[in-house]
């Protein structure tokens, strides 16, 4: 049990770290494409770690599976949205971050 | 089982909901016959309810069968029945007029009117503050939808302004509901009335303040009237009639209920405040009506002024005078007269093709019935005998002098003089306007349009002669 508890806490901390890194990147990176990386890579990895950590703490198997089911849905959504934003930015021909939406 | 099914009180809410939904399903411009027959049944229900209420003072209906803090109570007493009768009695002739005025077309008059009436009837019957909020929103959105009927750009702007004012007003009301619920754990008006004493905590004072302010905004009492003239003056005539005669009365009714119900314990020393605003409304609205160039704008400003009389009764509550009777008589007389006047104005505008007051010169000989209706409505608005408006104003002056509020009497007389100036200005033009070179061909108008306006105006006069049944209905109402 102790091992599971330890692993869960480690995962939560790791998740928090990746979220922090993603947020710093979002604030500090120069243009839209690089910022998309922070959202679609760092944040998703952070989310995965958080969900895995929480699933280990869950009371029932059903709850753990529900928590883990969030991850693939978010991955699909962020992949599509990241692509859509990048595609649109490319079509607009402006690499600089001017507007979030057309 | 049959007696359960035939509760007129409930059908007054369900009927308009049903015919409005059916008219919506039928599509734009459709549903007139549904609406008219529904309105006829509603009038019947209102009369049945009045017969039921008269001996018993109140009739109640527990929705869902749940007792009060849990469920919603529908209450009909003399006050609500009077307003219900006025609502159905005005909306049926106005709907007949609209049937002739709007014809078939891309408008949504019937469903919007149905929802409006469902909201108004629901409001008069509701004994629950949150339920009142929902009915207020129903009325507000329906009225805004009606204002844009016809689709001119000016109407869209007026409707937008109206919507924002209406939403802020009901927002204030809902905030008050939230504060009251936080303090007492219920939104039932009856329970709150017994729970709130004269020592109200700050939150209750604030609730009263924001609710009264919100309702005054929706009633368009000076200085919250800014949205009313463009909305009421710009909409097609039958819609202006509904809005001026009925819609603003609904929020005034809620104000009256709160003032005499839950807040009665601590607001009465402040009764001069609404009365002061009412006096300013009478003077300001009268002056603006005199200055107006467009006929319907003049009638709309007249509404601003006439709403002032309604709140003049507030200092008279608890002085032993018949303040409630006066207020209700004024509301009823104004409802009938103003509906008649807007319909007559609409006929004049449609016939002459001009929206300006100058456009109706020498119309008297050509549309005598309509001009007569306009004049009779004006008689009631001015307060000349033997109209309902006269009786209300006479009783108001009498009651004000009896308790020493001379200023109220002065305001009422001044308001009557202002009203006579703007009414006679129109009538003088119509009878003695500049010569024959202005004779333009009149658009044909249907007899229905002429006679519905006439009927409403005549009822406003007759009300002055036959006000006793109304007073008897109101005997049981606290006031």
């Amino acid at each position, binding site marked *: 049990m102790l091992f599971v508890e330890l692993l869960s806490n480690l995962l939560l901390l790791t998740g928090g770290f990746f979220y922090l890194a993603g947020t710093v990147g979002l604030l500090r990176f120069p243009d839209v494409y690089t910022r998309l990386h922070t959202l679609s890579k760092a944040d998703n990895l952070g989310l995965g770690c958080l969900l895995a950590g929480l699933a280990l703490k869950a009371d029932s198997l059903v709850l753990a599976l529900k928590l883990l089911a969030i991850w693939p849905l978010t991955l699909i959504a962020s992949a599509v949205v990241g692509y859509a934003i990048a595609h649109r930015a490319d079509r607009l021909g402006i690499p600089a971050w001017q507007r979030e939406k057309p | 089982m049959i007696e359960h099914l035939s509760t007129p009180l409930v059908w007054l809410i369900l009927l308009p909901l049903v015919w409005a939904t059916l008219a919506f399903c039928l599509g734009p411009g459709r549903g007139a016959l549904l609406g008219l027959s529904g309105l006829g049944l509603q009038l019947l229900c209102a009369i049945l309810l009045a017969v039921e209420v008269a001996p018993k003072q109140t009739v109640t209906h527990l929705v869902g069968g749940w007792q009060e803090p849990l469920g919603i109570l529908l209450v009909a007493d003399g006050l609500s029945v009077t307003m219900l009768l006025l609502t159905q009695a005005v909306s049926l002739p106005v709907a007949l007029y609209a049937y002739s005025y709007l014809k078939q077309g891309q408008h949504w008059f019937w469903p919007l009117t149905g929802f409006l009436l469902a909201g108004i009837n629901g409001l008069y019957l509701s004994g629950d503050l*949150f339920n009142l909020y*929902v009915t207020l*929103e129903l009325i507000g*959105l329906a009225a*805004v*939808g009606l204002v*844009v009927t016809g689709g001119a*750009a000016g109407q*869209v*702007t007026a*409707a*937008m*302004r109206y*919507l*924002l004012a209406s*939403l*802020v007003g009901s*927002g204030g009301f*809902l*905030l008050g*509901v*939230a*504060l009251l*619920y*936080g303090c007492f*754990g219920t939104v039932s008006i009856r329970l709150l009335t017994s729970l709130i004493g004269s020592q109200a905590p700050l939150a209750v004072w604030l609730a009263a303040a924001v609710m009264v302010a919100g309702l005054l905004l929706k009633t368009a009492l000076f200085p919250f009237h800014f949205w009313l003239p463009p909305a009421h003056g710009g909409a097609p005539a039958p819609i202006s009639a509904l809005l001026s005669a009925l819609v603003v009365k609904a929020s005034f009714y809620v104000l009256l209920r709160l003032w005499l119900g839950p807040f009665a314990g601590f607001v009465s020393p402040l009764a001069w405040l609404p009365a002061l605003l009412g006096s300013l409304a009478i003077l300001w609205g009268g002056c603006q009506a005199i200055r107006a160039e467009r006929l319907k704008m003049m009638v709309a400003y007249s509404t601003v002024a006439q709403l002032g009389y309604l709140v003049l009764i507030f200092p008279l509550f608890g002085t032993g005078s018949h303040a409630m009777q006066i207020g209700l008589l004024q509301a009823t007389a104004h409802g009938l007269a103003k509906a008649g006047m807007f319909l007559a104005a609409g006929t004049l505008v449609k016939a002459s093709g001009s929206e300006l007051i100058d456009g109706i010169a020498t119309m008297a000989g050509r549309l005598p019935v309509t001009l007569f209706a306009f004049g009779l409505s004006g008689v009631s608005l001015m307060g000349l005998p033997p109209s309902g408006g006269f009786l209300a104003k006479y009783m108001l002056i009498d009651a004000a002098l009896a308790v020493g509020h001379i200023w109220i009497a002065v305001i009422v007389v001044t308001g009557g003089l202002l009203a006579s100036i703007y009414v006679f200005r129109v009538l003088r033009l119509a009878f003695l306007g500049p010569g024959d070179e202005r004779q333009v061909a009149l658009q044909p108008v249907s007899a229905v349009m002429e006679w519905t306006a006439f009927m409403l105006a005549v009822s406003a006069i007759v009300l002055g002669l036959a006000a006793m049944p109304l007073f008897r209905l109101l005997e049981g109402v606290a006031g």
Partner: protein
Amino acid sequence: MSSGLLFAAVGCLLLVLGVGGVLLLDHLVRRILAFNLMGSGIFLVLVGLAQRSGRIDPVPQAMVLTGIVVSVAATALALALARRRYADSGSTTLQDKARREDRHD
């Protein structure tokens, strides 16, 4: 301080911010946004005050559900009016047109 009371206080501030926005701002979409802020503030006061002792109260929760649906309906109607106004006059505010008329007169 319970979380109910905390969020009721936040609701009061949101409400005042929203009312100020509806009354004082120009752009119609901004005023519609402000109306939504005002509504959210009132909803927070309703539920927050009722649950200030920490106990769940389903009645204001159900009322807020009703309120949210009503404000979505009002927002949709208001946006339709704002778009119509823009299509008619090219203006995104209520005041612009009057000012323009004044200048022409």
